[in-house]
């Protein structure tokens, strides 16, 4: 999933300051799972903003709504007919959601309320960790299901570096050494010999070599 965290309320208030009627727009997908922009967080943020406006004697109408996915056109168009009555939208979608809504409602200011973070997993309650950089050429087979690009601080494909100690990363002992994890996993599944050869340099053209990426699937098109 895509993870995100809410921006500081002060920054949000500065961005919405020019507007008197604002729609706080939540998203029921990834950002709901990571407790940043779902229905509940949207309601809480809207209420906090209303309270702040009231305390500062500002005239502002702040209402909220959550759609299932801010990054999918079919869901965004549900806002047709209501969004027009607002001066601005404060979006609790990820970066993709904010841009998708802005693309469809092209003359409406769409303000981000979240900082989009990474592709990751919900590891535990209140704990999300980064797993994937979206490189466009998955190498997880070779590395026993642990991605060194996402999880090694130096993105080494031939690690571990000299800073691996007791299974921890030199950058921060809170970080497990991805290469220790790779070695342990491959050892368990009998694939340690995969690490004997020098793994070649990554072909980054699959990620950013031709500018912004897109996927075209004719079989899916109407």
């Amino acid at each position: 999933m895509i993870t995100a965290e809410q921006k500081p309320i002060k920054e949000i208030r500065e961005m919405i300051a020019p507007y008197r009627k604002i729609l706080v727009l939540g998203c029921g997908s990834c950002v709901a799972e990571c407790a940043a922009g779902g229905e509940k967080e949207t309601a809480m943020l809207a209420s906090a903003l209303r309270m702040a406006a009231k305390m500062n004697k500002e005239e502002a109408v702040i209402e909220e709504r959550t759609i299932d996915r801010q990054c999918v056109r079919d869901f965004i168009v549900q806002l047709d007919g209501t969004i027009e009555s607002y001066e601005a939208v404060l979006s609790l979608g990820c970066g993709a959601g904010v841009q998708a809504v802005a693309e469809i409602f092209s003359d409406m200011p769409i303000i981000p309320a979240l900082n989009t973070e990474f592709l990751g997993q919900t590891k535990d309650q209140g704990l999300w960790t980064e797993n994937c950089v979206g490189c466009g050429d998955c190498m997880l087979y070779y590395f026993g299901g642990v991605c060194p690009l996402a999880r090694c601080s130096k993105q080494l494909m031939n690690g571990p570096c000299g800073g691996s100690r007791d299974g921890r990363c030199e950058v921060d002992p809170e970080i497990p050494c991805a290469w220790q994890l790779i070695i342990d996993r491959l050892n368990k599944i009998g694939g340690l010999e995969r690490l004997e050869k020098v793994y070649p340099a990554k072909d980054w053209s699959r990620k950013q070599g031709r500018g912004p990426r897109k996927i075209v699937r004719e079989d899916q098109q109407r």
Partner: protein
Amino acid sequence: MKDESKLKQLLDGGLFAVTAECGPPKGADPEAILRKAGLLKGKVDAVNVTDNQTAIVRMSSIAACAILRNAGMEPVLQMVVRDRNRIALQSDVLGASALGIRNILCLSGDHQSFGNQPQALGVFDLDSMQFIEAVRGMRDSGTIMGGESLASTPKVFIGAAANPFADPLDFRVVRLAKKIAAGAQFIQTQCIYNMERFKKWISLAEDRGLTEKVYILGGVTPLKSAAMAKYMKNKVAGMDIPDDLLKRMEGIPKERQREEGIRICVETILALKEIKGVKGIHIMAIEWEDAVGEIVERAKLLPRPKVD
């Protein structure tokens, strides 16, 4: 033989090599690097010039190496993959060779979070292993990555680092083997304080025949004080300082701790000279270059041999 690395000639000739580290200044004054390196002249065979070590902005390693070479010294250019992508790295290898720099040590580099630019983007387009392979390809096949031909090839002796004290121990030797397979011809190790562990590592390397394929230079750093030993033990990544060594430093009055640090360093070098797989030493006297002369003298490594 102008194109040949003096360090390589010496090692090929079976001589025990001595290299030392010299950090470029945090400034643009060429005299600063000459002054520091001047302390090493005649005491060592080659001078490693660090590449923005600990991710702190300093005079570029290539520039400092060129300055040293013009002053008649043999530089070892340290290059890290943290700050440059493969275009810049390969370009700088060509430039370094054009400037007469004949030794390159290919490194990952200290993570940017440790230095004075923690907001910097860490590049890590290549890792040190892939970089070694790229340099070898440029030199031996005359091609850059991807296979395109070069008009002329860089003449460089390729080095890499190894940390015998990092985990997991068994895989340390696999990684050494990979670096050799990629093209590393000499290795400079992390500072050796834990001799027992170092011996274990080198015997594992010997078992795989690696000490015959690469010149291993044992890294040493004289301790300035018990406080430095404690700091390195607890705070510096990849460092292994055994408790009894720390106790030894702490048991000495403060004003004599530098002297003790040098004594430990000399003892380590003398022990390293006895290990078959060790072909030289690399002294990293951090901001203490004037200690190097005394260390090599007491370790009976003077005078240094002349190489043309």
